[in-house]
């Protein structure tokens, strides 16, 4: 695959095929297998399930592209995927929900004042930190004093407003609401939110050695989640935000459309099934556009001088530094870009769900599973990351029915009410964790370059 053989060159001459055709052929076969698996679900279980799987696969693919940008291009271990995805979700709420005027009147000013005080405190701190460098230990005390004073002032400004906002019709709103803009815009804002957070995180954590970076980002993502969970004035916290507007038509409206009636008589479908399939298809189309755009952008970046520089930095930081490349700022740049992609995917996920539930963000599902996708797919290869997103999400969902089927098959010799059989069937859902772990371990051991390995350029 590294160097095209003579045979391959001849073929390229005749059919005008790309030089790395054998690798492409293998990728095509893998993609076809994935498509076959999805349609198998369609035939055996239901097409509705197959299309919701497809939608989640597309979102997972975008998330794993984001991680691949950080890990595959630059070797940065970001264990804070969950936090950035959740920030994208927050963007969906803040962009699309209608504002709550009563809440703004009750406490908008106080919150604004508090945030300004907080911002000023941080600015003073950064200024002091830089100015008081020569003062030794005194610097820490000075910073501590500023933090205490600034924090107390901020709390004095914010606390009454928070109480006032949360008292505004707590069962329905109890938060400030959003801007009431179309939800598709939030995908952009999700990227921006995540990018802004990544800038802060990157400035803090990128200087650390690789496994410290992982722990620091993991911790920071937990802090982000805690804020989203407990700052009710912003996100309604554990009360969740339901009924986000949709970028696609509603099933109920579709069911009344005349043209759909015609289609279902031709294809012999029920109206409910047809409308829900159509909605899922619309989502899939939107997601596909985003996915292809991101792939196109990152592939062209990777092929260009920028990609060469990133690989040089990843493979030998010292040498790249000696060549005059600014390693720190490149790392920060690539960290921001990758996080922005994750944020976009996070906003898309909340759009698809139609609700924002802070408690649903678990590191296992939103950080470590995405990592499995990248490693299994092939780190450093965008198509690999996409395939990994598809395959891993597919098995994350399908491991449960497959596991149940396997257990039922294996224990079919036992009597139906045997305690072991019942216990195994009851806990079949947990086979997905074991499967994912085994897939990750086996990939790392026997095919560390993944399903679609990085192309040597």
């Amino acid at each position, binding site marked *: 695959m590294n160097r095209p053989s003579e045979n391959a060159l001849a073929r390229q001459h005749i059919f005008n095929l790309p030089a790395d055709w054998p690798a492409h052929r293998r990728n095509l076969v893998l993609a076809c297998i994935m498509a076959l698996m999805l349609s198998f679900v369609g035939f055996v279980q239901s097409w509705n399930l197959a299309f919701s799987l497809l939608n989640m696969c597309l979102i997972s693919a975008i998330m794993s592209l984001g991680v691949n940008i950080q890990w595959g291009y630059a*070797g940065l*271990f970001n264990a804070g995927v969950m936090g950035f995805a959740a920030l994208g979700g927050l963007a969906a709420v803040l962009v699309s929900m209608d504002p709550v005027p009563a809440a703004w009147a009750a406490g908008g000013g106080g919150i604004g004042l508090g945030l300004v005080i907080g911002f000023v405190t941080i600015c003073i701190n950064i200024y002091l930190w830089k100015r008081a460098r020569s003062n030794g230990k005194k610097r*820490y005390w000075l910073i501590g004093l500023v933090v205490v004073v600034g924090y107390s002032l901020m709390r004095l400004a914010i*606390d009454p407003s928070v109480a006032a906002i949360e008292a505004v019709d707590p069962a329905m709103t109890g938060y400030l609401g959003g801007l009431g803009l179309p939800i598709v815009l939030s995908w952009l804002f999700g990227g921006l939110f995540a990018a802004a957070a990544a800038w802060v995180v990157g400035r*803090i*954590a990128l200087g*650390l*050695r*690789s*496994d*410290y970076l*992982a*722990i*620091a980002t*993991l*911790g*920071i993502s*937990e*802090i982000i989640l*805690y804020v989203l*969970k*407990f700052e009710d004035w912003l996100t309604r916290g554990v009360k969740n935000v339901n009924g986000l507007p949709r970028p696609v038509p509603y099933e109920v409206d579709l069911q009344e459309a005349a043209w759909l009636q015609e289609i279902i008589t031709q294809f012999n479908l029920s109206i409910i099934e047809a409308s829900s399939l159509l909605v899922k298809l619309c989502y899939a189309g939107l997601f596909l556009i985003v996915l292809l755009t991101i792939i196109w952008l990152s592939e062209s970046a990777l092929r260009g001088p920028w990609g060469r520089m990133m690989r040089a930095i990843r493979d030998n930081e010292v040498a790249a530094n000696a060549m005059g490349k600014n390693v720190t700022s490149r790392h920060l740049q690539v960290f921001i870009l990758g996080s922005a992609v994750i944020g976009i995917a996070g906003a898309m996920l909340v759009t698809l769900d139609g609700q924002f539930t802070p408690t649903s963000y678990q*590191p*296992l599902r939103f950080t*470590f599973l995405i*990592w*499995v996708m990248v*490693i299994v797919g092939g780190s450093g290869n965008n198509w690999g990351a996409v395939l990994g997103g598809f395959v891993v999400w597919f098995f994350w969902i399908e491991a449960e029915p497959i596991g149940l089927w396997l257990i039922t098959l294996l224990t079919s010799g036992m009597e139906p009410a045997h305690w072991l059989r019942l216990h195994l069937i*009851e*806990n079949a859902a*947990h*086979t*997905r*964790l*074991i*499967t*994912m*772990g*085994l897939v*990750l*371990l086996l990939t*790392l*051991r026997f095919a560390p370059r993944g399903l679609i390995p990085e192309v040597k350029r």
Partner: protein
Amino acid sequence: MEMLLNPLVLLVNFILIPGLAYGSQLALGALGVTMVYAVLNFSNFSHGEIMSFGAMVTILATYWLQSIGLSISPLPTALLALPLGILGSISLCLLLDRLVFRFYRQQRAGSVTYLIVSIGVMFVIGGLIRFIIGPDDRNFNDGDRFLLKAREFKEMSGLSEGLAIKSSQAITVITAFIVVAAIFWFLNRTRTGKSMRAYADNQDLALLSGINPDRVVRITWVITAGLAAVAGTLYGLDKSYKPLVYLHLVLPIFAAAIVGGVGNPLGAIVGGFVIAFSELLLTFAYKKVAAYLFGEGFFGDGLLQILSTDYKFAVSFMILVVVLLVKPTGIFSGKSL
């Protein structure tokens, strides 16, 4: 006098005693993380699940002991079952090392590869645990609930504030003290312990002086697994056993190890208590204390809480981030940074 004693009792009851117990649990966990880091050179993300596994075996053994009617009341049966839990997690760790980690050691893999491998291990053990015992909450503490009840203390001392000591808290602190003392004796006094420290300090030099690396690695896993099982069981006794919790416990444990200085056993213990006490100090509502000292309503009717209790867990991450920023080597400068 009572004006001073009452707030003191309040602080002891709500900060000192829970902090000592939680700190001991974190310290035991962090000690395990730090040992693996010092000898095997990687951050073991699966440590939380190893703790959970040890606790699970202990619980299953407890149920078995209860079913044959064995008990050491007023102490919880789990203490009797703990050796079995330790054995269980030791065999798990040795098996893992043989099947998974040894390969990467021979490859001399980088620390990030190890990290990803340990994430895979975390998935597998987590799945196994849920498969065996299910994801539900379990309370397996069948001993006496309290060593000292709040009401008894009030009657004894005549103060208006109560002081309660849960027996699980006392057991935690005493067990942790014994285990830590044994570990330090082992590391500083025995030949094997010294060879372990030598290996952690400089692998090549240790190999040259005839230390058997396989033996050192094996012993490290045995100690780590034992510590994990004890820590996991104590945490489960004190709070209640829930598989998901142990995944979230990994971060405070890492925070404790890093705050103290990764690779330094003494640092791990100090770090555990630093994390535990700062969590409690920052989320405690000082309203009542202030009321005793300065009179009711001196500071208005606020709770006088620095952070809301919701952020209890987040405190450890904040400390972690601050330490990584200001002094990444930790309080007792850890190794290899």
